[in-house]
């Protein structure tokens, strides 16, 4: 394994692509207001999957979540030349997040890439944040959701691309993954055990 892995910490030095640079910039702002975890396809891409994506999925949580907090978050985004493409004002953004709808943040005058930010609502959203893994990427810190849940959730989503992401992550990290946890999460999500057993191998 060429990544350095310690308990709940992965150290990765790589040539940064546009998505990596975007994720570092946006999480630096998010981190000032929320607890967060990056989930979804970008996690597999971060660790070398040979595909791209338009958006980076991020789950956020704050005990102080309020219109005021979101307004400050929007101010920070604006200051750093970002905009929320589907919820221009903090009032709309607050309404979206409170109702389980993601807000999409991109750099000014662009749409792609963007970060789809969702407020943790369901038990598994909170689990993603609770089990987050620290990634030291070229000396910058970002947090990704727990790998086992990420893999299980990819099976739940179930498209070819999602299953491929799950297999990629599994093959990279199988030595440190808690297999029982993956099985339990897939059961919880109602994923066919036969599918997981058949596909999740290297």
């Amino acid at each position: 394994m060429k990544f350095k892995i310690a308990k709940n910490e992965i150290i990765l030095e790589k040539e940064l692509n546009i998505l990596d640079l975007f994720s570092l910039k946006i999480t630096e702002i998010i981190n000032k207001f929320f607890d967060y975890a990056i989930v979804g396809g970008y996690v597999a891409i971060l660790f070398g999957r040979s595909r791209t994506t338009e958006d980076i999925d991020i789950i956020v949580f704050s005990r102080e979540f309020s219109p005021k907090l979101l307004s400050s978050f929007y101010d920070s985004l604006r200051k750093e030349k970002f905009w929320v493409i589907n919820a221009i004002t903090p009032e709309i953004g607050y309404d979206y997040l409170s109702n389980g709808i993601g807000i999409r943040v991109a750099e000014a005058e662009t749409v792609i890439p963007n970060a789809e930010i969702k407020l943790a609502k369901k038990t598994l959203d909170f689990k993603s944040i609770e089990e987050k893994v620290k990634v030291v990427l070229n000396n910058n810190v970002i947090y990704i959701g727990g790998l086992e849940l990420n893999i299980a959730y990819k099976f739940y989503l179930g498209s070819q691309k999602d299953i491929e992401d799950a297999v990629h992550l599994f093959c990279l990290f199988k030595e440190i993954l808690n297999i029982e946890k993956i099985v339990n999460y897939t059961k919880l999500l109602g994923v066919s055990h036969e599918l997981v057993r058949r596909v999740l191998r290297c």
Partner: protein
Amino acid sequence: MLILEIDENRLEFVRFWAKYVKERDPAIWSKQQKELIDSVIKTALQDVELYLKVKKISKEVKSKIKRQK
């Protein structure tokens, strides 16, 4: 049903690629990855209305497929 839809050949490539990534210095694969990702994003259409419309349709299709399963 879903199992029949999975392209095993593609999965084999993913396993091969994961092994490649795992066994090599990230400087090697990340350079190749950067070329792929940067070229796609640099040429992406930056049209917000179209993008949001496509996302909405895609979400509707996905949830329809999920319901059918």
